[in-house]
């Protein structure tokens, strides 16, 4: 969900950006990261652990902890919390360690 009213900050959202999460079309905004756009759309489970397949969400949001790794435009292990959202991106939940290109 987006914050609309804030006592200090004014959020100037950019243009709408259409992208795909596991095939489903989602709208984010210019200035979003992949993870922020997904979270705003109610998607908090971004992946699963390699061995026990437990759900994973983001943790640090500064590109450090690897908890938000997803497959983006076919590339595995993308840190979605610091990856700017772009038009027509395909974002997928990654199974296992992902392919090395």
């Amino acid at each position: 969900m987006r914050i609309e009213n804030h006592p200090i900050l004014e959020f100037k959202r950019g243009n709408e950006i259409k992208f795909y999460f596991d095939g489903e079309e989602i709208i984010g905004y210019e200035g979003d990261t992949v993870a922020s756009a997904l979270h705003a759309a109610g998607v908090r489970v971004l992946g699963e652990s390699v061995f026990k397949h437990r759900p994973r969400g983001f943790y640090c949001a500064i590109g450090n902890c690897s908890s938000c790794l997803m497959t983006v435009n076919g590339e595995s292990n993308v840190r979605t919390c610091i990856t700017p959202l772009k038009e027509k991106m395909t974002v997928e939940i990654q199974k296992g360690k992902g392919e090395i290109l």
Partner: protein
Amino acid sequence: MKTTDIVIVGGGPAGLTAAISAASSGAEVTIFERSPQIGGQLIKQTHMFFGSEKQYASHRGFRIADYLLDELNKYKDKVKIYKNATVLGIYEDGVITVDLDGEYIKMLPKRIIVATGANEKIIPFPGNDLPGVYGAGAVQTLMNVYGVKPADKVLMVGAGNIGLIVSYQLMQAGVEVAAIITDLFITGYHVHASKIARMGVPILSGYTVKEIVGEEQVEKAIIAKIDKQWNIIEGTDIEYDVDAVCLSVGLSPLVELLGQANCELRFISELGGYVPIRNLDYRTTNENIFVAGDITGIEEASSAMVEGYIAGLTAAKDIACIHDDYENKISDYRNQLDGLRSGPHSGRLRQGIEKLMGGNK
């Protein structure tokens, strides 16, 4: 091979002031910042800073990032800033490698200032890996930078300044804070704690997280009292129906690049973990590498900025770019640091620095 005088790793408060110092000394500077924005953690700080006027006290953090960028802009012929640029390695021959927006580049700078900051710690409890268990700083980023509501109702773990301030900011963003818990006592400023208590949020001391319950994500938090040996006391459970749990349980310096570059590190718990051995000029044991900010030990943005100013001056001087007013500036910055670290809240920090530096503070 691309070259430059000084590469700065990290575009937060320390990296930006280091760049201002180095560029104003006449050095060419390149900043690599892995995030899509410059300013590090300043850009999500909506509260007014404490400290002294020289570090912009009573200004809101995100404004300070703008002031620093405006200042840096005066030297724009000398400064290159790259966002979405993750430094991957610093090699024995001094070459650094960077993932620049998907492109792999190499560069050979004369000196490197590492100002990578810190990483949020996590504590062990069942369910701590569930989506919805977030670093407090992460939640701050989500709501204050991206304008996304992180949850409807949150349990905050930790009552240091970050825990207290982020709790207040959560409420400003329309999120309910069920409670703030801390294992020992409130370690943040009491002015923040009182403000939150007045808003009706309970702050519970002597509690820890027993378990976070949820199928796919956080659905419920169970906390319990702990005894003096940190064991859970049975029968003291309190349950909260929350959809997120924020951890503000400390930070640790991001020293991986320094370790790889053969800078000697030492574990000092008062400073947050492994920190580089450094001298008063903020030079590490690798003579071409300098450091500034939280990587040298966890402190406030105000001291990070002053350390950045020092490291920028000293690294530039090393390659014969000497600031006109070098001596005065260095001694002023050292005095500012002493001042910032002199308060009653900085006892542990002073102990840590004493352990690191011995007599050479």
